[in-house]
């Protein structure tokens, strides 16, 4: 019995020293030993082989439907006027009293049915579909047995991910987070000085680097010359809580958010000791002026780190960018837009908060192949004269969507949980009525009711 314990102990020591020596220390110094690169390259080759194999398999078995990432239906892109105009072309026109025809309803009917089959909004809150299977059970759509080799590789993948990578990653994550809490608390004991700031930055970056290794994250940063500077506001598209780790690997930011309880709360309280972050109580969040004031005060102080804000307000699945809430764009100051695009082949980073809580989400992250993403720093933008906050927000959103190759939508991310406003329906009605009832319809002035 004792022999077994000794062996386990030795094993544990070896395990820990491997982790510290080969992963943690290089990570802290920003040095890469190249393991992850090799891993990714091997993975890419295997996935390419798997894709070809699946395609071959599908040709041989025609009942197997192939994936289509492009949607189910082909939609007409015409405006309401064009479409209804076409409908009426064949109908004899009667201008005597209003321009309604029975076939007008067809336009709305077809649009409605198209939306039932496929709509732009609902699909943004579920994970992106892949063009071909990436050997993870969870992205397993239409899995049919194709070949023995594929199944063996899949099985090996499961073993490697769950039995080798998962314990490794969990250990790293635990080390990273504990070091964050301990380190920032220690730094917090120092009096305010340049040394304190330097140490705080060091602690933050090293911890986030360790956490990034804990996810096997490979991040490519582009245009580093546009990196956010102090006194500015960094805005980015939001896909998951991991976005913070991704961005904080390359710079230090002041976080903004609600005060949480539990483990999050512990982390929040300790990191705010070493450098100022902006945490709001739930009650404060409702008062927009108070929120704006605190953020303004923060950016007015040029010694404080740039604020990191996700204006969408909720997690979107990284295929599109949804409406940016204007609050962050009313404060003034320079906006540094950042576009984050994850490569879904290696692991799906989207947090579907309706389906998974934080813990199960993190476990899913740690059992994926890896997290590979691109981060583009865009040139800073400021609000121009004559532009209001909403227009400015849309301008920034378009820039981010364009850079990241994402669809630019004006739907509100809050629709994940809320109902559509009546005003949207009224807009549709207005557009239609302008086609029916022209301004010179009645001699007597009867404007819209």
């Amino acid at each position, binding site marked *: 019995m004792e022999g077994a314990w000794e062996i386990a102990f030795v094993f544990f020591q070896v395990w820990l020293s491997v982790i510290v020596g080969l992963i943690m220390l290089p990570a802290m110094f920003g040095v890469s030993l190249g393991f992850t690169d090799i891993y990714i390259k091997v993975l890419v080759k295997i996935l390419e082989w798997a894709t070809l194999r699946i395609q071959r398999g599908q040709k041989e078995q025609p*009942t197997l*439907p192939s994936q289509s990432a*492009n*949607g*189910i*239906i*082909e939609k007409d892109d015409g405006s309401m006027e064009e479409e209804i105009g076409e*409908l009426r072309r*064949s*109908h004899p026109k009667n201008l*005597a*009293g*209003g321009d*309604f*025809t*029975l*076939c*007008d*309803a*067809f*336009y*709305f*009917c077809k*649009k*409605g*049915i*198209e*939306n*039932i*089959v*496929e*709509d732009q*909004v*609902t699909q943004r809150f*579920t*994970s992106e579909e892949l063009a071909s299977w990436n050997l993870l059970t969870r*992205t*397993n*759509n*239409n*899995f049919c047995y194709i070949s023995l080799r594929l199944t063996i590789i899949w099985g090996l993948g499961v073993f490697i991910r769950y039995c080798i990578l998962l314990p490794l990653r969990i250990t790293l994550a635990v080390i990273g987070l504990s070091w964050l809490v301990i380190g920032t608390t220690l730094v917090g004991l120092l009096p305010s000085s340049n040394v304190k700031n330097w140490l705080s930055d060091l602690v933050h970056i090293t911890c986030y680097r360790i956490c990034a290794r804990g996810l096997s994250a490979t991040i490519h940063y582009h245009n580093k010359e546009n990196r956010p500077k102090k006194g500015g506001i960094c805005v980015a598209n939001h896909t998951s809580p991991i976005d913070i780790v991704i961005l904080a690997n390359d710079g230090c930011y002041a976080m903004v958010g609600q005060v949480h309880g539990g483990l999050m709360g512990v982390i929040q309280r300790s990191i705010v000791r070493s450098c100022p972050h902006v945490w709001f109580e739930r009650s404060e969040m409702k008062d927009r002026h108070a929120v704006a004031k605190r953020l303004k005060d923060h950016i007015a102080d040029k010694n404080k780190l740039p604020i990191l804000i996700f204006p969408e307000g909720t997690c979107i699945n990284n295929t599109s960018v949804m409406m940016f809430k204007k609050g962050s764009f009313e404060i003034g100051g320079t906006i540094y837009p950042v576009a984050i695009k994850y490569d879904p082949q290696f692991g799906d980073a*989207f947090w579907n908060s309706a389906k*998974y809580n934080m813990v199960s989400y993190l476990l*899913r992250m740690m059992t994926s192949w890896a997290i590979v993403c691109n981060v583009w720093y865009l040139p800073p933008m400021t609000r121009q004269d004559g532009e209001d906050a909403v227009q400015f927000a849309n301008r920034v959103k378009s820039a981010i969507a364009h850079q990241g190759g994402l669809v630019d939508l004006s739907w509100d991310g809050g629709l994940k949980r809320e109902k*559509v406003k009546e005003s949207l*329906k*009224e*807009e*549709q*009605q*207005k557009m*239609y*009525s*302008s086609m*029916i*009832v022209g301004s010179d319809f*009645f001699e007597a002035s*009867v404007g*819209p*009711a």
Partner: protein
Amino acid sequence: MGSTSSTLLKIPNAEVLMQETGFSPAHIIRLHDRFKALDKEGRGYLCPQDFGAIKELAMNPIGDRIIGAFFSPGKETVDFSTFVKILAHFRPVDKDRPKEPNSPEPINSRSNKLKFAFQLYDQDKDGKISRDELLKVLRAMLGMQVTEEQLESIADRTIQEADLDRDEAISFEEFRKSLEKVNIDHKMSIRFLR
């Protein structure tokens, strides 16, 4: 994370559905995925609220009527079979189908598409679009943007044009005749990819 997709085997009556609707296996599977995505609580059927959750449908002026078309009178739920059969109305017309004399008319025939549109107007299903029913649809599509008088004027004119037997209502035949030149196949069809 999207739920795992179904193979044809897991879908009840898939063969029968394909026969009746003309959808291909790939389409049936995609529609089943969509059905499951809309059926958030996984009950195996849809109720009006599930449709109501589709944001773009909620802003469609006649969205409620379209949703209503899925539910037969008295029924509060829609199962997958019914879901597919209703959507089958919007399959493009099969131009190459041989005309067998005794086979039933396909769901996506021109006539059936017109019937579908007709029932959006004819809510009490008495086979005629009365003036009242027409007014209701107009009110739905135009909202508060026009006055009651304008609405009535439009309704009267429409009935006058289409009503051939002078019974102050539009029957299905009159409806069909009034729209005989409209390209129904194009305007009431959805092009499914593959």
